[in-house]
């Protein structure tokens, strides 16, 4: 089976999308960019191939054993992956304890680490087994990190194995876990997953037929901030502006204006009826009002990035905020808090300030034309979407606002379509 890959090396996350010859999405992958683009590209691509395999698997297992079995298999597969990563983290922490912890503390530290990881493994099993598991970060680092932190706090002893000691061990080892290519291979984990769900011969046969279909990567196009790191010829490297434009067109074919707010830049793009960019504007020298800004705000408030939007939506009144300077964000926030403003009201004002900045870029690029598609990580934030909708209506009248739940993949999707289009032409 011929396939076409698009890789988007963003400043925060790296995404990969695989298409078949008809342009249908076979698979997608996402990972932290970690300032190691080579590895991030490899991991995202590998993950996209895994989901592509699951795409094939889906058809065949569902036909052979039904949707419920398929779902269980998929979850078991993810669990196997996560457990492998947990196992590796624990192994590294234990090595670190042997190396750096004082003799008299070594045994008690190992015991606490063991107890933490046993619980984490149990929790992982439970999370994957749950009907509707609570939402959490897509990234191993964040999901595992918050569980570890919680358990370490609970089990630390200020007189012997302190929280700081446990935290230091984790911080040191998680970097290595992230930066070594883990065994994420499809075949390895699918075997474990099959065992976990009972290894029925019908399912095994369907899995094997999906596993053995070759996926031939005909062409790859790279985009995003790290694109120059990709080992591709120049023709296969495309600007993310073009990729976002085309990606948005593929997701919503009637798109004429695209707003993309990513980690470190904001792009306002106008596209024609075939998804070709006709005009664009980007933020200039600073990342004010971009995803990274929200990240700082979340850090300042000591909450998760995904909690910002919902918290802002609890606001009853908007605080007017003019500066979206990332550097001043902390100071601005503390100033408002000291004046007695409520967190949700401040956040509401911040979201509006970000969107005002985006509106200025949109105006410079040629306005907001129908239909209007919002992409990038910030499109996942409900308060940002609400502020955008309101401002768009105030300035341009009612527009159809498209947001895909998969908008984070827009750039990679556009890149994959460029790979497909250019191969076909």
């Amino acid at each position, binding site marked *: 089976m011929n396939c076409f890959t698009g890789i988007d090396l963003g400043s925060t996350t790296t995404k990969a999308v695989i298409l078949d010859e008809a342009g249908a999405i076979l698979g997608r992958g996402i990972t932290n960019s970690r300032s190691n683009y080579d590895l991030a590209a490899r991991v995202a691509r590998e993950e996209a191939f895994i989901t592509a395999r699951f795409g094939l698997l889906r058809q065949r297992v569902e036909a052979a054993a039904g949707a419920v079995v398929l779902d269980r298999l998929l979850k078991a597969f993810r669990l196997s992956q996560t457990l492998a990563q947990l196992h590796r983290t624990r192994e590294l922490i234990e090595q670190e304890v042997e190396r750096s912890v004082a003799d008299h503390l070594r045994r008690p530290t190992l015991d606490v680490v063991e107890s933490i990881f046993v619980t984490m493994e149990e929790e992982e099993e439970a999370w994957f087994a749950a009907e509707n598991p609570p939402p959490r970060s897509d990234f191993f680092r964040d999901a595992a990190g918050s569980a570890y932190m919680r358990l370490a706090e609970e089990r630390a002893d200020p007189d012997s194995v302190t929280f700081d000691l446990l935290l230091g061990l984790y911080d040191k080892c998680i970097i290595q876990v992230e930066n070594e290519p883990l065994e994420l291979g499809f075949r390895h984990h699918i075997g474990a997953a099959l065992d976990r769900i009972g290894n029925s011969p019908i399912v095994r046969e369907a899995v094997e037929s999906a596993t053995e279909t070759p996926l031939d990567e005909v062409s790859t196009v790279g985009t995003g*901030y790290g694109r120059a790191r990709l080992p591709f010829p120049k023709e296969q490297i*495309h*600007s*993310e*502006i*073009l990729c976002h434009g085309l990606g948005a067109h593929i997701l919503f074919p009637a798109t004429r204006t695209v707003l993309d707010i990513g980690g470190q*830049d904001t792009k306002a793009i106008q596209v*024609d009826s*075939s998804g*070709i*960019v*006709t*005009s*664009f*504007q*980007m933020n*200039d*020298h600073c990342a004010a009002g971009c995803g990274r800004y929200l990240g700082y705000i979340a850090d300042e408030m000591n909450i998760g990035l995904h909690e910002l939007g919902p918290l802002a939506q609890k606001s009853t009144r908007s605080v007017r905020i003019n500066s979206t300077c990332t550097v001043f964000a902390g100071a601005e926030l503390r100033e408002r808090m000291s004046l007695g403003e409520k967190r949700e009201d401040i956040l509401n004002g911040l979201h509006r300030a970000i969107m005002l900045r985006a509106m200025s870029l949109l105006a*410079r690029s*040629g306005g907001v034309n129908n239909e209007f598609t919002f992409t990038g990580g910030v499109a996942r934030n409900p308060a940002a979407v609400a502020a955008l909708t309101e401002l768009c209506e105030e300035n341009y009248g009612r527009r159809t606002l498209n947001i895909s739940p998969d908008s984070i993949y827009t750039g990679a999707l556009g890149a994959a379509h460029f790979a497909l289009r250019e191969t076909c*032409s």
Partner: protein
Amino acid sequence: MATTAKDRTAKVQKDRSMVLQKQMIAEHFRRLEEAPESGEPVVYTFVPGNLTELIRSFGALPLLPEINALQSGMRGKSRDYIAEAERAGHSEDVCTYVKCDIGMLKSGNIGPTGTRLPKPDLLLLSYTGCYTFMKWFELLREEYDCPTVFLQIPYQSDGKIEPAHRAYVVEQIRRDLIPTLERITGRAYDEDRLRHHLALAAQAEDDLVAVLESAKHRPSPIDAYFGAVYYVGPIFSAFRGTEEGVEYYRELRREVEARAAAGEGPITPDGPLNEQRYRLVVEGPPNWTSFREFWRMFSREQAVIVASTYSKVGGVYDFGFRHDPGDPLGTMADYCGGCYTNLNMPGRVEMLVDYIREYEADGFVINSVKSCNSFSAGQLMMLREVEKCTGIPGAFIESDLVDPRYFSAANIKNRLESYLQMIDARRAGNGA
């Protein structure tokens, strides 16, 4: 091996104009350094509206602070100079040319060729379209306590120089400037001498226009922005209306015409650019602190600039203006009022549209610099207007003149690459 011989000839020819320019500039700064001893009067003035022929006719030497500032930027000195000026109390948001010049002054006043710069005997402002110029000379006047002449130059709000405006400027030159020059130089105004310099200016201007218009060839033998910065150097600084200037432009024209005849492109930081994928028009001054890096962003994509407005800040000669020895004061008034940034917005839009059409450009890029409101105000409106008139989308990038803190290579490269790929996509779309 005929081409090798041709290449060698081209190289030798190219070297000659460059060598000439280098010698001219070195000699000029040597004379400036010795001015306190030799007694040659020194007049500080700015490129737009500069009255070099008149200054020369009084035997005085022109010195151009903004050229020194851009040279400091290219030589990697501007960061420290700007910091020096900011320590002295100048805001981060002030034009960086000014701060670079003030910082240079405070750091010993060593000019671009490593020689000490003399104090001015006169500060001559002959273009008031840039408000910052006025403030700049006020600062220098504080420093040097020397005579100052500020000519009021009316803006071309209706797109042309009105007869009354012209008469007004002529009157200021006659009543204010000439007597001041007579006083500080101790010489009487000599109109024949002025006519002589103006005639030399017109000769060099003819050759400069031929050089700039050579970009209509395919491939273009010049880069009309990055390369043209060097070509306009002598005529914008101190050599318009001089014998050396005439010789330089005669030589340059010969070299460029030889390159055009041989079908050769310009020499870029990465070597000759003979294969030209994109022909672009550029509006706005270049960034000086990363000049070569900025140029490379274009040349590595095989983009050549075929016309630019920046190469016209010292005169829009390609639209017909020539210094006229038959009407010495009138021609100087026309020159002052005809500065590129003194044109109104429709005039600037029209100029860009003309360039795109006449030079058969694939696109146009606006480099909007933080420092210069004379250039940057209204540029987005211009972008939209030019797009509307030509049907060709433009690109908008942002940087600064000489403050390295405002040059974000990744950001600019990203926009430029996106833009060039957009041109490709449009070509592919139109071809299908």
